């Protein structure tokens, strides 16, 4: 590679780095507050409100949330749903997106319109509930996956990426005798790793954040994913209740507990991204395949 070493380029580099560093810091500070708050006492939190470095370190919040296995169990469920759900959704989305990326496909525009229509209109909570019930998914974890198998938005993005691949690739493969499936799995997918990584990440995060469906479709609290717990704790502890009419004698969870649950429930998804980042390296595989 030829590196550009001119003065203009260096100034460009440094300004860029400084601005990005400031942005990175500004976005992460509130999260630092969340993490720091989870490691302190609720008294310190009440005294200061905004904490970046705790003076009074405490692990009490973590001891509390891990004193029963509820959190761990719901994390395991979330991880299972996320992994299986992402694989399932990617499979369906890749097939659909690849088919629709073929410009010579009859009926393509109509089908695309048919799909976009579903972004704009939906039948609402109750009819969807009934279909989920009719298809036998109630009270199964599949109810968190099957009814949201394909996200039209993600599928369309994937299709756009596929379309951007050089047309020559596929034709060459076809001449070599690959079937459509062969072209997809041997040529198109390996060349689209950044896109596959991105859309997988989108699906994974959506599944990780699943919340409302769990409450609607699962009567059995043993199957609840971690977001139900997280959400319940955050809403209870923040005291932002959508209606103030129900009063109970049960004290709300401590602020530190709220923060600790946020931290624990966020860490798994935070770990995914750095892991995927290697697929974002510039022109990772495209170049090599072409040669």
């Amino acid at each position: 590679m030829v590196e550009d070493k001119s003065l203009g380029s260096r100034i460009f580099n440094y300004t860029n780095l400084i601005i990005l560093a400031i942005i990175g810091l500004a976005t992460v500070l509130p999260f630092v507050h969340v993490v720091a708050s989870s490691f302190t006492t609720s008294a310190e939190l009440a005294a200061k409100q905004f904490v970046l470095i705790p003076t009074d370190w405490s692990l009490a919040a973590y001891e509390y949330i891990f004193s029963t296995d509820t959190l761990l169990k719901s994390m395991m469920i979330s991880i299972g749903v996320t992994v299986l759900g992402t694989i399932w959704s990617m499979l369906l989305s890749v097939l659909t997106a690849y088919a629709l990326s073929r410009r010579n496909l009859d009926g393509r525009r109509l089908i695309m319109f048919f799909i976009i229509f579903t972004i704009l209109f939906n039948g609402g909570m109750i009819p969807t509930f009934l279909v989920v019930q009719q298809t036998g998914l109630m009270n199964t974890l599949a109810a968190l996956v099957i009814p949201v198998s394909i996200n039209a938005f993600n599928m369309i993005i994937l299709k756009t990426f596929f379309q951007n691949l050089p047309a020559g690739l596929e034709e060459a493969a076809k001449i070599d005798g690959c079937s459509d499936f062969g072209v997809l799995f041997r040529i198109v997918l390996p060349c689209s790793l950044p896109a596959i990584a991105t859309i997988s990440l989108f699906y994974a995060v959506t599944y990780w954040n699943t919340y409302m469906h769990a409450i609607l479709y699962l009567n059995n609290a043993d199957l609840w994913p971690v977001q139900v717990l997280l959400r319940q704790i955050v809403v209870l502890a923040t005291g932002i209740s959508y209606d103030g009419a129900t009063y109970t004698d049960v004290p709300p969870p401590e602020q530190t507990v709220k923060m600790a649950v946020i931290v624990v429930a966020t860490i798994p998804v935070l770990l995914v991204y750095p892991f995927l980042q290697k697929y974002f390296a510039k022109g990772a595989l495209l170049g090599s395949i072409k040669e």
Partner: protein
Amino acid sequence: MNQPLDIAAQEQAKIDKANLKAERFRRIKRNKLIYIMLLPGLLYFLIYKYIPMYGLIIAFQEYKPYQGIMGSEWVGFAHFERLFSEPDFWNIFANTLILFGLQLVIFFPIPIILSLMLNEVRIHMFKRTVQTLIYIPHFMSWVIVVSISYVMLTLDGGIVNELLQVFGFEPVNFLLNPDWFRPMYILQVIWREAGWGTIIFLAAMAAVDPQLYEAARMDGASRWRQMWHITLPSIRSVIIILLILKIGDVLELGFEHVYLLLNASNRDVAEIFDTYVYTTGLQQGQFSYSTAVGFFKGIVGLVMVMFANWLAKKAGEEGVY
């Protein structure tokens, strides 16, 4: 009509049509594997998206859950009439459009600019770290974002106002002054979503053939020119698709976020369709009315998407359909 020439032409047209049909049939047959690939996806949309859409007809009924759709009374366009004649309708419409405008004009370009900047970073560790940091806020729920903002901005001991006072400024009533609602809204959106938004563009940039940059450098193109002539054009199709889809979302602005920011003093500028439907509709179990509002939003979105798509095609782009 009886002219022989016409007959010949008709015959010819028939043959052409038959040929066309035959050719199309052959094409479809050749592509049968592709259609098989499509099948599961289409079935999914049919079952879980289209079948429930029969629920939209309750927008034209006085729906009672226990009577079901079959048994509920038909009321025609009454719910739509009610929506359009609400005293606040135009105000809500304007508020929604203004927030949408902010999203489109201020928020939308930010992830693109950020990704261009990140894409220029040569130090991998630095790039990855910043990428990860700016992606974190996406995982903070709006409840957390709003409550952290409160803690920082409140007049009762918030850091921002304390700092303003240290530097000799008057404290600012960020939370209760309606003028601050829109800036606060868009800043929170940027804080939470900008980093997340870069992922798609970075992926698109990663797909650019490095040889293009090599060639440009050989030609002595500056960094700006490379950005402008190589990076941007290569992510253009992704930008356009995202833009069209975003435009279709014109009336969807994040119910929870706005709802949490909403208060008595900013309601005139902050009430949007979603929050309005929540107080008038869901809270009182008025399924029909809220469905009618959803229907209206869908139609507005559809018109916007079709318009944006037409515009894109007019400009020689691919469009979404």
